[in-house]
């Protein structure tokens, strides 16, 4: 375990990911999160804030890490976000879920799908059939293999960020990363 002091992202950011911001931004922030986790709920507006502060210098990626046995709705919520992604509306659903963490049962998920303008019958069929379960699990395992040990866990340019994610500390770390020599991988 001697080279283990720094945990790194084992699955590089790529076309499979849901991202906001320029593909060639100097900093990529990856979050492994759980829609029912209260800490992730707290992190949600903070990420929005650092996105505002960094502007086009930042690319943000969200991956699923539902702890479904602690959070009974987390797995379905993650599958719902992937269902929305299948219809090109991942971020609308992602935001709706974090803004309504107390209402994540299936009835509400369908409501958010309708509000996001999704094809609701298709969304419901996929949700019921767990069409996106394997994708969610793939995210989860990629997190485990990268040293994710709880939620939220952040990676800045592929290196796990273990410091506090209050807006100022996170912003500072991201700004420092924009100045660091690029170690990121190209798509």
């Amino acid at each position, binding site marked *: 375990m001697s080279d283990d002091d720094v945990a790194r992202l084992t699955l590089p950011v790529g076309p499979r990911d849901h991202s906001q911001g320029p593909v060639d931004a100097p900093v990529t922030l990856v979050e492994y999160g759980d829609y029912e986790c209260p800490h992730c709920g707290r992190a949600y507006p903070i990420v929005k804030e650092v996105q505002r502060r960094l502007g086009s210098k930042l690319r943000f990626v969200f991956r699923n890490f539902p702890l479904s046995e602690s959070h009974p709705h987390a797995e379905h919520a993650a599958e719902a976000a992937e269902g929305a992604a299948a219809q090109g509306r991942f971020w609308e659903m992602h935001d709706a879920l974090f803004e309504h963490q107390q209402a994540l049962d299936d009835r509400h998920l369908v409501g958010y799908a309708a509000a996001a303008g999704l094809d609701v019958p298709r969304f419901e069929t996929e949700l019921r059939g767990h069409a996106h379960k394997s994708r969610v699990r793939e995210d989860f395992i990629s997190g485990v293999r*990268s040293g994710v040990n709880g939620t939220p866990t952040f990676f800045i340019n592929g290196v796990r960020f273990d410091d506090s994610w209050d807006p100022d500390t996170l912003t500072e770390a991201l700004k420092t990363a924009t100045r660091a020599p690029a170690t990121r991988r190209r798509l």
Partner: protein
Amino acid sequence: MSAANHVLPAGTPAPDFSLHATPDQLVSLSDFRGRPVILAFYPADWSPVCGDQMALYNELLDEFARFDAELIGISVDGAWCHLAFSHDRKLRFPLLSDFEPKGGVAKMYGAYREQDGTTERALFVIDAAGVIRWSYRSPVGVNPGADGILRALEALKPGAAAHE
């Protein structure tokens, strides 16, 4: 600084033990001979952290099962405490109670924190022959995750039985 803060290293035969898994059930390490065992010492039940170490492992039982590995959690909490904690967190693996003499097993593994009277956050992957093949002690406030365990299990895979 205590000199005792060294967990047993890879290559050491894993000391056998018998501890209570429930108030009326004893579990021995030797019960699992023939299969890999993951021993996860952790400081205490009822950690307030969301997605704590045991919750994470609970989500990974399918992964561990691919290696036919048994996961066992150990802390100094009593068997009744473990029972309540297990129910609350819906844990699907045994939690052993290193309660009397307190921390006796943790001490054998170099995984006891004298200053706190709790077990360390220490992980051991033990092979089918009962030999420690990987061990790791995490700072007590840091959840070590599961990546190291999975890599150690992968390294066991080719010759399951013993070395040589």
